[in-house]
């Protein structure tokens, strides 16, 4: 497949991206709008192109799936699961344990409208749950936010690299749109993965002391120290792993902040308003955790105004406000329930902001 251009859905691209990255096993529980991921990976089991891909199991529950992932990650294999909102809530237990046990694996949340069953349309309303540690206890997981089918294809490799570098779960946070959208993609030729797991993974313990993967520590002081070491790791990630895209921000007076599918609409708005001479730019966080606080703060220090656009009632805006500080105006445009803002709506909102500012 590398070298070819193919026309596929975002969910299928994510599945093939994982296979191309060296996926060993997938543990599935179906939920709309993510089900093409397990469907693709069920089909590809046994494909000689992916000899390392050995196992696909459809579990009896979301909990069973994430705990099978925990088993597979514990032996240092490249394993993955995917879900959508309601299932992502159920996965939080496993993510909390995994963060403490420092297990590397990939999980995708193809976010739909919530809360509860909501509907099957796109939302970004799992932002809080994804970025703040949705389960119990102090922890973080990496959150990557693709905005195209191409990124759905290429982020699994990025995700596995981060997961094994930091021994931490990595989430790909898509939405019903990035999952269901069909676009042209190209898969790069990737090296065989070669992550060193020998110091911690369980397996054949001949000639070494037992490895114990555990989140329990009854001694308060030891737990304080263990978690302190993990928090240091999070700090290193915040310093080194931030990804974002800036588009025409240099001379912009107003900067739209948007991630995922919304950033695509926002970019079209920037292009169309630039033609009318309005100095506007786009800032797109690619890693939602670690959040690009520093570069966003730098734009604020240059005196720019911000318009935050999300498919929810305002979640990332809290991180944007923290980044830009209280002296900077951050406007908000939110759509939820499966509805996307149109370019025209965004343009009208920006022109109002411009008028108020003038």
């Amino acid at each position: 497949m590398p070298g070819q251009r193919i026309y596929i859905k975002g969910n299928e691209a994510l599945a093939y991206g994982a296979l191309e990255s060296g996926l060993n096993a997938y543990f599935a529980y179906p939920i709309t709008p993510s089900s093409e991921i397990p469907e693709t990976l069920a089909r590809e089991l046994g494909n000689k192109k992916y000899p390392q891909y050995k196992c696909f199991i459809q579990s009896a529950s979301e909990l069973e799936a994430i705990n099978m992932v925990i088993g597979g990650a514990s032996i240092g294999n490249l394993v993955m699961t995917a879900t959508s909102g309601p299932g992502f809530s159920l996965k939080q237990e496993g993510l909390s344990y995994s963060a403490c046990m420092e297990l590397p694996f990939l999980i995708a949340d193809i976010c739909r409208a919530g809360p509860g069953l909501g509907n099957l349309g796109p939302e970004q309303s799992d932002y809080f749950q994804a970025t703040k540690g949705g389960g119990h206890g102090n922890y973080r997981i990496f959150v990557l936010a693709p905005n195209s089918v191409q990124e759905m294809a290429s982020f699994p490799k990025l995700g596995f690299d981060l997961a094994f570098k930091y021994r931490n779960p990595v989430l790909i946070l898509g939405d019903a749109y990035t999952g269901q959208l069909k676009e042209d993609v190209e898969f790069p030729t990737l090296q065989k993965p070669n992550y060193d797991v020998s110091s911690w993974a369980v397996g054949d313990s001949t000639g070494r002391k037992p490895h114990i993967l555990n989140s329990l520590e009854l001694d308060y002081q030891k737990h304080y120290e263990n978690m302190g070491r993990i928090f240091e790791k999070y700090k290193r990630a915040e310093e080194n792993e931030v990804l974002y895209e800036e588009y025409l921000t240099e001379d912009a007076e107003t900067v739209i902040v948007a991630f995922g599918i919304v950033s695509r609409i926002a970019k079209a708005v920037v292009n169309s308003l630039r033609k009318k001479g309005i100095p506007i730019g786009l800032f797109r966080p690619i890693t939602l955790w670690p959040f690009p606080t520093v570069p966003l703060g730098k734009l604020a220090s240059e005196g720019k105004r911000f318009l935050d656009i999300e498919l929810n009632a305002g979640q990332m805006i809290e991180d944007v406000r923290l980044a830009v500080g209280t002296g900077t105006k951050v406007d908000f445009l939110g759509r939820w329930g499966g509805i996307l803002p149109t370019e025209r709506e965004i343009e009208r909102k920006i022109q109002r902001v411009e008028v108020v500012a003038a």
Partner: protein
Amino acid sequence: MSQQSVFKIKAGKIKSLTENPTHYCAGCEHGTLTKLIAATLDELDLREKTIMIDSVGCSVLAYNYLNCDHIVAAHGRAPAVAAGVKRLRPELNVFTIQGDGDALSIGLLETIYAAKRGTPITIFVVNNGIYGMTGGQMAPTTLPGQITTTTPYGRDPASTGTEFDASGLISQIDGAAYVRRASLVVNEIPGPRGKVYTIKNLLDAKKAVKNAFKVQALGGFALVEFLSTCSVNWKMPILEAKRYVNEQVIKRFPLGVYRDTYGVEKA
């Protein structure tokens, strides 16, 4: 009694046991099971190839006692974690020790589906009729009328149902290859100068452990349920608790081989 002769271990320590003292309460059979498993791992030369999935409950600290690799699972999820390991590394020996609450209440789905899929793992369930680690609440295996901290007037089947027959249920599942109920409780028998204790139950339990690992090596799912006491939370003296199992509990939970697809019991 000489443990060496009972477990057929040559002089010297059991390699699969660490030297840590256990945290188990006096009279508890968890330590007995740990030792039976360790001795069996030595006998089958499986220690280095074994991954234990520790569950939540009194068994959670087993990683301090069994000298092999461990993954400590969330409450009820040990069979799913075990499946994740075993499906990718079928040459490893993967087993869990779970309490009745872990395996039959919060983790019942995981237990049933591990059996249904014929996952080649071994599950040891300690049935002591109570939630021990949380301080003595009703378990799925609590007998009708039994007093616990959440059934202070005795378990009332009208609202809580009756005790859960794990071996009976799992043996109905076609994917299960070996299901046996054993007891870790010693028996009193009359001797020439008063009562003596027989360890027949422990020998049977040891055999069940060994067969369960053998079944895994043959590619089958095995579950062994062990009757056990919890004198602390039953609020009974140790010997009285053991008598209660041998005289009362055993009537509701008969010992025996419930399923043996490969015929390992006869071998």
